[in-house]
C-alpha cells in the first residue's frame, strides 16, 4: 500500500489549475498553426493569428488565455494500492482549486446553486471524476471548462438502427447549432455507447486526447476524419465569422451499450480547450 498525504494532492491541483488556464497545450498550438496554413478566409486567418498571439502573451505573462477560466473539471486516476492520508481526497482537491484560483488570479465563475446563483467566490466545488486502476499510480488532470462551449453541448439517445450515420448527423447538427458562441475552431468530444451518463463522461474525456493524434481504435480513425471534413464544410470558421476551420479535431470514445440503445454525447471544447496533468 502506497501512502499519499492529502496536502500533496492540494498542492498539485493548485499548480495544475494555474498552468492549465495560462499555458496552451503544445498540440493545440500546433493545431492553430496548421489551420492557419489551410484557412481560406482572410478574416479567419486574422482571428487564428490573434489566437496564437494571445497564447504567447498568456504563457509569457502567466495570465489566463480566456477570462472564462471555467468550472474546474478534474480527472483522478488512482491505483487501488494507493491510500490517501490526512484530509478527505475530495476536500484536498477542492482546497487546491480554491488556492489555485485565488493565487493565479483566475476568474471565479461558480454559483452555489443553479437557482439561487450566489457566487461561491473561489470556484469550488470542482466536478471530479475518479477512475480506479490497478497498481499504485496517482494522476490528476485539471481541465477548466468554459461555458460558451459547454452550453452548446448535447446528448441524444439514438436507436441502434440509426447507426454510425445517425451519430455523424447528430454530431454535425450539434456543431452547426453551436456556431460562433462555442468559440471556434473547436474540439469535438464524442462519447458513444454505455448509458446516458457514461456517454456524457466519455465525451468530456475525449477532449483530453492530444490534437493531431489518431484514435487507438482503428475502426474509428476514418469516422473521425470524415466527420471533421464535414464539419469544416459548414463554413462557420474561426470566431464564427466564416471560414473553413470550424473544428480542429473530432475525438471519439466508445463503450459497450445495451441491445436497445445508441447513446451519443457531444461535448464541445472551445479553441481554448485547456488541460494540465501531473502525477504523485
Amino acid at each position, binding site marked *: 500500500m502506497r501512502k499519499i498525504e492529502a496536502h500533496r494532492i492540494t498542492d498539485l491541483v493548485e499548480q495544475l489549475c494555474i498552468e492549465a488556464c495560462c499555458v496552451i497545450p503544445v498540440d493545440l498550438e500546433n493545431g492553430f498553426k496548421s489551420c492557419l496554413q489551410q484557412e481560406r478566409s482572410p478574416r479567419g486567418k486574422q482571428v487564428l493569428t490573434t489566437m496564437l*498571439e494571445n497564447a504567447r502573451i*498568456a504563457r509569457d505573462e502567466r495570465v489566463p488565455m480566456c*477570462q472564462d477560466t471555467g468550472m474546474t473539471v478534474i480527472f483522478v486516476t488512482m491505483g487501488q494500492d494507493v491510500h490517501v492520508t490526512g484530509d478527505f481526497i475530495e476536500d484536498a482537491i477542492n482546497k487546491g482549486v480554491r488556492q489555485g484560483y485565488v493565487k493565479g488570479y483566475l476568474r471565479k465563475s461558480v454559483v452555489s446553486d443553479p437557482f439561487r446563483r450566489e457566487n461561491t467566490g473561489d470556484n469550488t466545488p470542482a466536478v471530479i471524476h475518479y477512475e480506479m486502476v490497478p497498481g499504485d499510480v496517482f494522476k490528476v488532470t485539471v481541465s477548466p471548462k468554459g461555458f460558451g462551449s459547454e452550453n452548446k453541448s448535447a446528448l441524444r439517445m439514438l436507436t441502434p438502427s440509426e447507426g454510425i450515420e445517425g451519430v455523424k448527423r447528430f454530431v454535425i447538427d450539434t456543431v452547426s447549432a453551436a456556431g460562433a458562441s462555442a468559440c471556434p475552431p473547436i474540439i469535438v468530444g464524442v462519447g458513444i455507447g454505455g448509458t446516458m451518463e457514461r456517454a456524457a463522461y466519455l465525451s468530456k474525456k475525449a477532449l483530453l486526447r492530444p490534437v493531431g493524434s489518431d484514435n487507438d481504435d482503428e475502426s474509428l480513425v476514418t469516422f473521425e476524419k470524415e466527420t471533421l471534413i464535414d464539419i469544416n464544410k459548414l463554413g462557420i470558421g474561426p470566431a464564427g*465569422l466564416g471560414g473553413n476551420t470550424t473544428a480542429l479535431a473530432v475525438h471519439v470514445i466508445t463503450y459497450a451499450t445495451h441491445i436497445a440503445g445508441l447513446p451519443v454525447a457531444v461535448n464541445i471544447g472551445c479553441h481554448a480547450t485547456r488541460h494540465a496533468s501531473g502525477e504523485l
Partner: protein
Amino acid sequence: MQNKSNNSAIHKLHTPISDEAILSLKTGDMVSLSGIIYTARDAAHARLVEMASRGEAMPFEFKGQAVFYAGPAPAKPGKQIGSVGPTTGGRMDTYSPYLIERGLKIMIGKGGRSVDVVDAIKQHGGIYFAATGGIAALMARCVESSEVIAFDELGPEAIRKLRVVELPVIVAIDHQGNNIYETGPKEYLEQ
C-alpha cells in the same frame, strides 16, 4: 492591432458614439473602439431590467454608450484588469429588446442574436459588435482603466466602467439587421 492582413479600412470610433456614426457602419466593417464602455452580463442584465421596470435610474447613461458582455478575470498586482473578452450575446436576448427600447444602442459580444433583438436593433437604429472570444490576454491590453460602478457583490458579473484604447471589434449586426453570423459562414459553406 488586427488591421495588417485585411484590406478594408478600420473605422476609428470614440464613445459616446453618435447615431449618425452607427448608421454609417455596415456588417463586416472593422472598428477600433476607444473611450468608456460598460461591462454587463447575465446577472447584471437581469438587475438592469428589474430596475428599469421599477422606473429607477440606470447605473450609467445609455445614450451613445456601449455595453460589453464581459466578466473579466481579477487583475494581477500592478495591472488595471485581468484577462477580458466577450461572452455569448445570445444569453442576453431575453433582456436586450427591453433595454434597447430604453435607449441602449451599442452592444459588444460574441455569437448570434435572436430575431427579437435584430428587430429591436433595426427599429431603434442600434448596432451589435462582435469581439473575438478567448483572446482575453491580448484584449486586456486594450483596457486602460477599470472601475466597478454597480453590483459589486456580483463579483465577475459586476458592472465595470472600462476605458479602452483601440479595442478591435467587427460590426456583426448593423442597423439594417444584416448579420455577419449568417453572411460570413454562407460564403464558405460547401454543400
